[in-house]
């Protein structure tokens, strides 16, 4: 029996904090913002007794840079925030990517633009999957849709960040951050990680290590950009994760992630009860996006309904992925409320043939 194998009922935010501790991340830096405050509250209580460090920074800008410094020593470190705070971190995330440093950034997203509101939203999809800051880079983006996944994917994010020396993002939202569901603190499959020979620990018995993103010599930066690109291509080959529900015989496949995928899954059940052959394709990695599995699926299924809590962002990736003759429809729900499974079923009926 593992010490944590008991089933507990916790908020998604708490599951992330527990996963951080269980992944050996003892360094947290953050600034309060709704709806993710359970993360810093949990860690401010539990890190110090473990010998860890918790800093409530003066801003999200400071938070991401504290993370950058801590990560440069080879230690696992994280920050968390919600949409407006994540915007402030973009500069630092770009530096993390440019300096090839790991680090976990949790976005329990709320709604925008601007101050927006605190209701669930998926309006940060573009920001998360296109890099978000300046320069040609990507972050690893994982989108949990249950409290167990908040835990499991946080553990995975730390491993992937270390494996690729690249920042990783957990893209959740207010709904799965705040809701409680059963959780088992289980340890996932271990990834063999290379030693962090690049870490800054003092140049003792070795040449000095430098971590930087400034490349001024002729051709140097171009080379670095291609190197990063190859890393992202490798992620596309090795790290794509998705869930497929009832797609084998489906005539219409829903595509949704995160909390929208939860509702969609219930709608698939409702549709099946009415004899409609409907399936669900749920990307778990938003970057790398499951382009190939979706393309392969589109050779059998020609109708797709993308559902998002925004006005159409992942929609673009779905359209880019599917075969040319596939029809991609869209149901968008900008911030305010979540659609009910019955409402989604009505949408399904519009496009089902």
């Amino acid at each position, binding site marked *: 029996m593992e010490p944590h194998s008991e*089933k*507990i*009922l916790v908020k998604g935010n708490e599951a992330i904090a527990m996963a951080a501790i269980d992944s050996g991340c003892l360094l947290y830096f953050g600034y309060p913002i*709704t*709806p993710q405050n359970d993360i810093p509250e949990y860690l401010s209580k539990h890190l110090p007794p473990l010998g860890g460090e918790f800093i409530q920074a003066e801003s999200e800008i400071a938070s991401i840079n504290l993370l950058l410094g801590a990560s440069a020593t080879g230690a696992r470190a994280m920050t968390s925030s919600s949409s407006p705070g994540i915007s402030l971190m973009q500069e630092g995330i770009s530096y993390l990517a440019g300096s090839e440093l790991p680090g976990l950034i949790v976005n329990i997203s709320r709604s925008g633009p601007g101050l927006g509101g*605190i209701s669930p939203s998926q309006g940060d999809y573009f920001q998360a999957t296109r890099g978000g800051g300046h320069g040609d880079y990507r972050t690893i983006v994982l989108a949990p849709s249950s409290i167990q996944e908040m835990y499991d994917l946080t553990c995975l994010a730390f491993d992937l960040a270390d494996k690729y020396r690249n920042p990783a993002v957990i893209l959740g939202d*207010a*709904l799965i951050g*705040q*809701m*409680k*569901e*059963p959780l088992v603190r289980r340890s996932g499959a271990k990834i063999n990680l290379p030693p962090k020979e690049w870490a800054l620990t003092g140049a003792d018995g070795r040449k000095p290590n430098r971590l930087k993103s400034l490349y001024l010599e002729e051709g140097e930066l171009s080379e670095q950009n291609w190197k990063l690109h190859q890393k992202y291509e490798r992620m596309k080959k090795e790290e794509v994760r998705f869930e497929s529900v009832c797609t084998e015989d489906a005539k219409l496949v829903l595509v949704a992630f995160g909390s929208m995928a*939860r*509702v*969609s*899954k*219930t*709608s698939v*059940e409702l549709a099946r009860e009415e004899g409609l052959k409907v399936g669900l394709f749920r990307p778990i990695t938003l970057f790398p996006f499951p382009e190939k599995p979706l393309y392969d699926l589109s050779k059998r299924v020609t109708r797709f309904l993308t559902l998002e809590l925004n006005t159409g962002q992942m929609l673009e990736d779905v359209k880019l992925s599917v075969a040319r003759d596939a029809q991609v429809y869209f149901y968008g729900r900008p911030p305010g*409320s*979540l659609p*009910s*499974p019955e409402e989604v079923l009505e949408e399904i009926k519009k496009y089902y043939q």
Partner: protein
Amino acid sequence: MSDDRFYYDFIVAGFGGQGVLIIGNLLAYAAMKEGKCVTYLPVYGVEMRGGTANCTVVISSRQIGSPVVGRPHAALVMNLPSLIKYGPLILPDGLLFVNSSLIEPKEACRKDIENFFIPVNEIAIDHGNPKLANMIALGAFNQKTKLVQMTSLFESLEKVLDERYHHLIPSNIEAIEIGAEFARKNISPPAR
């Protein structure tokens, strides 16, 4: 409860400070202990003592999609604003569970649902601890709905309550039992 296709959802609502989130939490925890799928969704953001507080709980034999419920099977309302907000949303034949210490029974006027009244604050005061009104409501609500075993609720107390309050667990159990007893004796709806 042993159906392999069980599904029930409800909203618990009241003033912040009335302990409504604890009610939802305990029921969800107990149902989880009994092997059910559960979700619990609290309001978040502008929470404060005296403000409104509510939570939505879904208990199911199968994986739960949305933790948000537009039309619940039941609403446990601890104050009038909560009745006004959630009373009309309850599904036909559903249950409106009313704290009649703070809400006039005439406010609950829907005829297509079961209206259950219990003066939880008075009962709590009569038993010497006004702070346990929420536990009395919980006991009665669970007796009415038979969602979980009472023992599962008792066992969940130490998981849900902060350690600082663990010495109060016996008095909480007692309050839950008093509420359940009230519901057993008033099993027929008084104002239907």
